């Protein structure tokens, strides 16, 4: 383990922590807690805060209730109305919780002191992708019946019968295998790449601080680091938005009755 570089008596964690934070509580049990698990707990508490704060029923919302209501309105107008239309509003609680949980997990990447997105470990995106897979499949089976759901999703309308032996395996792989896999990889790889990028520029800036004449180049990684922090804030929000939007699109395509 390489010891971390330091600057002005602040110490960076060692570089191996990019992929392996040590467990510091309840070691050697399946319930070991490391820094990433603390970020999960913080994101859960923040998400529950939004639901709890929105529970006051003043007619003219002020303060915390206003914030909670505008968050839910953003999810409703920006995600549900775009993909599912008015009949999708019953999915609003689940999609709001999912959006804000993923957003709070991601935003810890840029908060000083923590700087670790919980979604940079494959466990959380994997669990979320499996959860979304169950949700849209079960919603489709409830809506169409099991055989009707398979027919609805594997046979697109207007396809000549002779092409079906080619189309059906392609649609099967695309609908049931590639969708959750791509959801998982998109969220995980975006956040891991952003984390590694921030770590690289931060360590480079810290290392240049103590060199004699190389410090001439110090502003370059510093400005790159500042730019990438701004970029990572955008990416955190965007990845949470895209995950939730794609969940809504998959639920809509599983439960629609268009043909």
């Amino acid at each position, binding site marked *: 383990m390489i010891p971390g570089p330091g600057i002005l008596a602040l110490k960076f964690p060692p570089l191996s922590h990019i992929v392996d934070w040590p467990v510091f509580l309840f070691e050697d049990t399946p319930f070991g807690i490391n820094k990433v698990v603390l970020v999960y707990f913080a994101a859960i508490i923040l998400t529950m805060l939004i639901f709890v704060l929105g529970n006051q029923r003043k007619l003219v919302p002020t303060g915390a209730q206003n914030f909670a209501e505008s968050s839910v309105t953003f999810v409703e107008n920006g995600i549900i109305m775009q993909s599912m239309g008015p009949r999708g509003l019953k999915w609003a609680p689940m999609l709001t919780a999912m959006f804000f949980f993923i957003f709070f997990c991601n935003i810890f990447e840029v908060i000083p002191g923590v700087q670790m997105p919980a979604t940079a470990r494959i466990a959380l995106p994997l669990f979320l992708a499996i959860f979304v897979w169950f949700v849209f499949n079960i919603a489709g089976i409830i809506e169409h019946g099991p055989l009707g759901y398979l027919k609805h999703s594997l046979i697109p309308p207007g396809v000549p019968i002779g092409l079906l032996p080619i189309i059906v395996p392609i649609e099967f792989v695309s609908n049931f295998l590639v969708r959750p896999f*791509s959801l998982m990889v*998109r969220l995980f790889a975006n956040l891991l790449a952003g984390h590694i990028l921030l770590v690289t520029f931060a360590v480079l800036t810290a290392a240049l601080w103590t060199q004699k004449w190389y410090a001439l180049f110090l502003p370059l990684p510093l400005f790159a680091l500042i730019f990438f922090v701004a970029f990572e804030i955008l990416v955190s929000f965007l990845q949470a938005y*895209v995950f939730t*939007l794609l969940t809504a699109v998959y639920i809509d395509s599983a439960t629609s009755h268009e043909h």
Partner: protein
Amino acid sequence: MLLAEITDTGLAALTYGIGALGPGIGIGYLVGQSVQAMARQPEAAGMVRTTMFLGIAFVEALALIGFVVFFLGQA
């Protein structure tokens, strides 16, 4: 004197580099077309922007699968 050598890490990095060509062209084309659409019809800009983000997410997923392949191919 050995100047260059083909190793696992080198091949993995080359794989990712070639794999990022397609999504680069794809995202560039997609954003260009959506800018053109927004310029033609400014009142549809909101819907075009949402669809653009959706399309970018799909295309970028391919580039990121390549990034994951780099970590798999390295050691």
